[in-house]
Each structure stands twice: as structure tokens, then as C-alpha cells.
């Protein structure tokens, strides 16, 4: 299971996700798997997460930005520290119980 950022309010969570999804280093141009050369005409990575999830326990969150992702973007440790200080998320191990029960959510 992965870790998530979580907050008590939707506004806090949305502000953080907006910052992440609009980071100046996005979109990311991928590389061709064989040549390792940039493939700007192919699908680019345009955002980290698509939406804030309202959890069953009343909190709001989305999956934590991974170290691998931060490393690939070249985000400095200073910027990582500033990010956490600015948005102040609680970092928690993902719990499937946060997600609305399948019957309520559209199981298809």
C-alpha cells in the first residue's frame, strides 16, 4: 500500500493538489523505452493526480507524491521541505476503508 496526503478540509487538499498539478515542471515529456530519447509527440504526463478523494472518515486526500517522481522532476530537498511546510499534510499509509464501499461507488 502507498502513502497518502490527508487533510481535514477539502479546501486544504484541493489547494495542495492544484499546486502539484500546476507545477512549472509539468507536463513531463516521456522518453522512448528503447532509445531513451525524448518523445514529445507522444503522451505526456500532465498531472500527478486527477482529484481529491473524500474519505469515509471525513478527511480529504490523494496519493503522496513519490520520491521517484520528485527525483525524476529534479525537485530539490529544499523545495520538498518548503512544500510540506506550506501545505502541512498528514502523511498516512493508505487504508482501503477510506474509500466508499463498492456498492455505493459504481462497481462495474
Amino acid at each position, binding site marked *: *500500500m502507498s502513502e497518502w496526503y490527508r487533510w481535514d478540509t477539502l479546501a486544504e487538499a484541493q489547494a495542495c493538489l492544484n499546486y502539484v498539478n500546476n507545477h512549472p515542471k509539468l507536463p513531463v515529456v516521456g522518453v*522512448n523505452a528503447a532509445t531513451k530519447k525524448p518523445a514529445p509527440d*507522444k*503522451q505526456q*504526463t500532465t498531472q500527478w*493526480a486527477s482529484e481529491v478523494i473524500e474519505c469515509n472518515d471525513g478527511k480529504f486526500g490523494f*496519493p503522496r507524491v513519490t520520491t521517484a517522481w520528485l527525483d*525524476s522532476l529534479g525537485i530539490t530537498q529544499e523545495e520538498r521541505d518548503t512544500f510540506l511546510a506550506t501545505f502541512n499534510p498528514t502523511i498516512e499509509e493508505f487504508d482501503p476503508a477510506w474509500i466508499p464501499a463498492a456498492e455505493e461507488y*459504481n462497481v*462495474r
Partner: protein
Amino acid sequence: MAKLTVPAGTRFFITAGARVVVNAGWTPAEMTTEAWYDASDTSPTNIVQSGDSVSQLSDKGPNGYHLTQGTAEQQPQTNRTINGLNVIHGAGSDFMTGEHLEYGTFPIPASGDIAIFVVAYPDSVVQQNQSMFSFDASNDFQFDAGNNSAFYGRIKPDGIGSSGYDMNAVDKVGALGIFSVQLDFNGAGQYTGFYNGTEEGTPVSYTAKLSSTQVFRFLGNRGNNYMLDGAIGEMVIVEDVTTATRQKIEGYLAWKWGTKDNLADNHPYKDIPPLKGN
């Protein structure tokens, strides 16, 4: 012209001056595919990645139905091999934000017929709707685990006039296998499933064809909330639902991915791979 078939590992001698034509191995490039996704071939399939995360897996067939994922935390990974070949895998467990690729406007052939062949290795299952792939529209289906702790294989439809098809209740987690799903609307009016070339379960009759355009999801279900925890090596999608074509594609996949020993003894490609021109 005489044909000589030589089993793998057999030595034979050719007299000087003789003319010998050797047939190359058959691949899906020899037929019309609806789509062909091959994770093992990192060159022509043009897997596009950032780190190990895949943003695009291209269609090697003529239609260009490239699978994409622009959201980083939903991108599957390409840092694993099975039987020496590269695969694409999803973590599956973080459903709702799970890893998958998709093509948003996948046309279903006018006949309504479609066959999907997948080389896959399910790693684990925690929910029956975790899907290897799905077609999402009003008349649609997904191919999912069918069990909350094992991957049996289930064709779960909506809107086509039937309730679903269960493959044998044998867990397929932890093994590389060839899954074949066939929807034959125009002929028998039935759909069915095969595992390593052997039909499992009883074909199910249905009355309405699939919707003409679908969201096709690779590693995910129609609701986009239950993803496969596992790997996919290759997927071939064709309109032709004949037995001969099914067996040829199964033979191609089995020999390529090292699972030929799992084909039934009476499978025509148990002992020799399909060859060009045959």
C-alpha cells in the same frame, strides 16, 4: 515443393545444391488486428516512459489505438521481466487511483464480434472486480478476477442480454498464462473464455451486440476503480473469432512467452509454432 517440419532441437542435414526455404515465425503483423499491444518489444511498440512509469503503450497494428495515461500516479510500471521479456504491471491495490492505461474511443467491429488474447500474470486479488481489461459503454463487459481472493477469470457484461461467464474456479494468481476472451455475436451468438488454449466453462448466449464505441481500459475495470495487481506482457485484439485464428494467436503467444508446455496436447501448436504462410 515438399514441406519438411523439424521439431525443435532436431538436427538434419541438407545435401549440397539443395534449395531450402525456411518459414519465419508467424506474428499478428500477418493479419488484420483491431489492436496489438506488445510490452516485450520496446522498440517498435514505442513504450513511452518517465522513469519506470508508462505514459504510452502504442498499438503495433494499423489502427493506432495507442494506450495512454497522463496522470502520473495512475501510470503502470515497466521495470519487470517475465521469462526474459519486458512486461507492464500495475499495483492494483490502491483502487480508485490505480494504475492503468486506456484508449477513449475504441471502435467495436460492425459485426459485433471481437476476440481478446492476453498474456498475463496476476499477482494478487482482493476484490472480484479487479480487471485485466475492460470495455466501457452502455453495452459492454470487463474481464475480471471473479473472486475476492483469487483470479479465476470472469466475463462480466452489461446490456448485452446475459449475466456473465465464469472460468474454472482455479486460481491463476502467480502464473503466466494466456487468456482468450471471445464474443461471437454474428455467428453463434455466444461468448466464452479460454486459458492456455483450453475452454473453461460453458459458452453463454447473448442477444445484443457491444456498443459501437468503447472506452478501452488496460489493467482496469469499467468503473475505473478496481485495477489488476499483476503484469501484462502482450495483448492482441481481432475481429476474427474462428477457432483457427484463436489457436494461431495462442500458439504465437505460447511459444514467444514460454508457456507452450501449458497448451493442451491436442492444440495444433503444442509442438510447433505457427509459421508464416501456413
